[in-house]
């Protein structure tokens, strides 16, 4: 069997069902490909071949017994922020470098029950704080389209692994764009569901009012299948929504003729098409909008007057919540503990100084400051008020449109190291993505072109709360008419010539 290339979930499920290959053959083929390509990409923190093959044998047994389900035998990987009892959960940090979770994250458990094959855990920005996957204690993730470039972040390992066809699907978490931005920069699809759709139980907490888990895949159709398995009420997360089960793929069947998007109104916020957007990104988005119109959608101009404040609001609220959440890392109950200290306070201070990287420390310090006595009203309360103004803008916009479209990120991928020393420059990558976290609404990114350097560009589609099925429908119709999502980096041929880490 030659080294395999991961197909889309839909293709692989069909092939497994038709017995064109067994799940063990598929999994071994992908493990071979991972062994070949991961040293250059650094997409995985942990690879567990033995466990993956055990899952694959169970999947083959399910096929033989005739009780396979839509995701049976589909090889996936989890962002290493999802707790898993089977392998370590590092969150990309020295603090948790050897952490063995006693339990599984709820979404990981659901995907296991759905019959997926877990190949490993993927690399990420430390504690999901970043937009480039460079801040990991385990080294930066490299973009499969060009390994001198970042894959986006913070869920860059999952995005790179799906883009390089090492796995069929993956999980990520999105607090300010950490699924959508790496999906865009790596040329794949990623979806952040409505806040409360996927349980946060077992996700290492970053900013609890913004964090949401979601899927990565090659196609919108595949995202729907993954979300079907990941969504659902979980009493262990007090913000998990108790809603009737929904089939997120329900609108995707059938062709609906040449104009399947007839009646769909796409809002174009003028704030998303202004200065600061790379010309190639602007052109690719423009072409994509033309395609959506050709499919029957109408476009309407909308205004989101306060959305320009989303970045400052986010960089108060997210660090504030992070400073509180990350106070649990004290060297007492789990994780790193400093080896020498004078007293308890000093043990905390040394443990946290050693265990956290520079960006995580910065965010904890920002959060501590904005919550501290005398500053709470000026920063934290103010940010929460502006958060409501932003949510109000979106609510008004959805009276005249069903979906909001625009670029996922202002540029394609940037070089590793280019923004590593300038936090504010890094934060501005999230300029189009953070608003959906502040409002809690669903949003996704799909590939829609390439820039002059051959790096992928993402189209962001946002909707009102619970509009996942509509977003997936628009994305699916776009993908039936275009082939951007089928483009894959030509890594196999270039592997031999990849320069070693640090020489680019």
């Amino acid at each position: 069997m030659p080294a395999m290339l991961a197909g889309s979930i839909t293709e692989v499920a069909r092939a497994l069902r038709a017995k064109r290959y067994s799940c063990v053959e598929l999994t071994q083929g992908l493990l071979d490909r991972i062994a070949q390509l991961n040293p250059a990409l650094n997409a995985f923190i942990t690879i567990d071949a033995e466990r993956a093959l055990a899952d694959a044998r169970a999947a083959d047994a399910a096929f033989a017994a005739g009780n396979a389900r839509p995701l049976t035998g589909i090889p996936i990987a989890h962002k290493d922020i999802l707790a898993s009892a089977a392998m370590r959960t590092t969150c990309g940090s020295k603090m948790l470098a050897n952490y063995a979770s006693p339990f599984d994250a709820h979404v990981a458990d659901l995907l296991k029950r759905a019959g997926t094959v877990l190949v490993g855990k993927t690399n990420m920005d430390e504690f999901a704080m970043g937009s480039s996957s460079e801040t990991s204690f385990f080294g930066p993730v490299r973009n499969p389209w060009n390994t001198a470039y970042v894959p986006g972040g913070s869920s860059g390992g999952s995005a790179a692994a799906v883009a390089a066809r090492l796995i069929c699907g993956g999980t990520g978490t999105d607090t300010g764009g950490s699924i959508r931005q790496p999906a865009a920069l790596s040329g794949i699809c990623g979806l952040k569901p409505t806040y409360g759709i996927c349980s946060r139980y077992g996700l290492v907490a970053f900013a609890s009012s913004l964090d949401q888990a979601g899927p990565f895949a090659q196609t919108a159709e595949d995202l729907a299948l993954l979300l079907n398995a990941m969504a659902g009420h979980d009493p262990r997360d007090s913000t998990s929504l108790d809603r009737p089960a929904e089939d997120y793929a329900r609108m995707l069947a059938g062709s609906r003729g040449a104009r399947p998007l007839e009646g769909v109104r796409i809002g174009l916020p003028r704030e998303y098409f202004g200065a600061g957007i790379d010309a190639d990104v602007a052109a690719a988005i423009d072409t994509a909008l033309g395609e959506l119109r050709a499919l029957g959608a109408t476009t309407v101009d909308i205004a989101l007057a306060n959305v320009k404040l989303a970045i400052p609001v986010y960089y108060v609220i997210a660090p504030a919540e992070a400073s509180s959440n990350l106070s649990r890392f004290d060297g007492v109950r789990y994780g790193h503990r400093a080896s020498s200290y004078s007293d308890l306070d000093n043990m905390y201070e040394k443990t946290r100084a050693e265990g956290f990287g520079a960006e995580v420390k910065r965010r904890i310090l920002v959060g501590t400051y904005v919550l501290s006595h005398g500053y709470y009203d000026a920063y934290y309360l103010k940010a929460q008020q502006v958060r409501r103004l932003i949510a109000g803008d979106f609510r008004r916009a959805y009276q005249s449109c069903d979906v909001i479209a625009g670029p996922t990120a202002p540029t394609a991928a940037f070089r590793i190291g280019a923004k590593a020393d300038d936090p504010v420059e890094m934060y501005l990558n999230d300029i189009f993505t953070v608003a959906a976290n502040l409002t809690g609404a669903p949003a996704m990114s799909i590939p829609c072109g390439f820039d002059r350097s051959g790096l992928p560009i993402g189209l962001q589609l946002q909707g009102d709360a619970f509009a996942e099925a509509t977003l997936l429908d628009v994305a699916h119709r776009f993908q039936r008419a275009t082939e951007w999502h089928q483009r894959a980096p030509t890594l196999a041929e270039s592997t031999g010539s990849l320069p070693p880490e640090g020489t680019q």
Partner: protein
Amino acid sequence: MSLSIADVHRIAHLARIEIDAGEAEEVRAKLDAIFALINELAAVDTTGVEPMAHAQDVTLALRDDGVAEPAASAAYQRVAPSVQDGLYLVPKVIE
């Protein structure tokens, strides 16, 4: 607004993160740049705007006051840096 080195040390102490004198200036400069971004909010008129703490207007769910989880302290303590007789060990806090 500009942070002082003393501010940096005060916040670092509140956050229980040791910052030595050598790194304090770099931390201060980076935090200053972040606060320059954040301070755009100061100019926004938010008179009478209700703060938004959460995306969904749902009240936190309460469960019945009963036993829901099995006792698993041994499993949880297995990952602790230092335990003895079911207790977490820390440096002496009472003389």
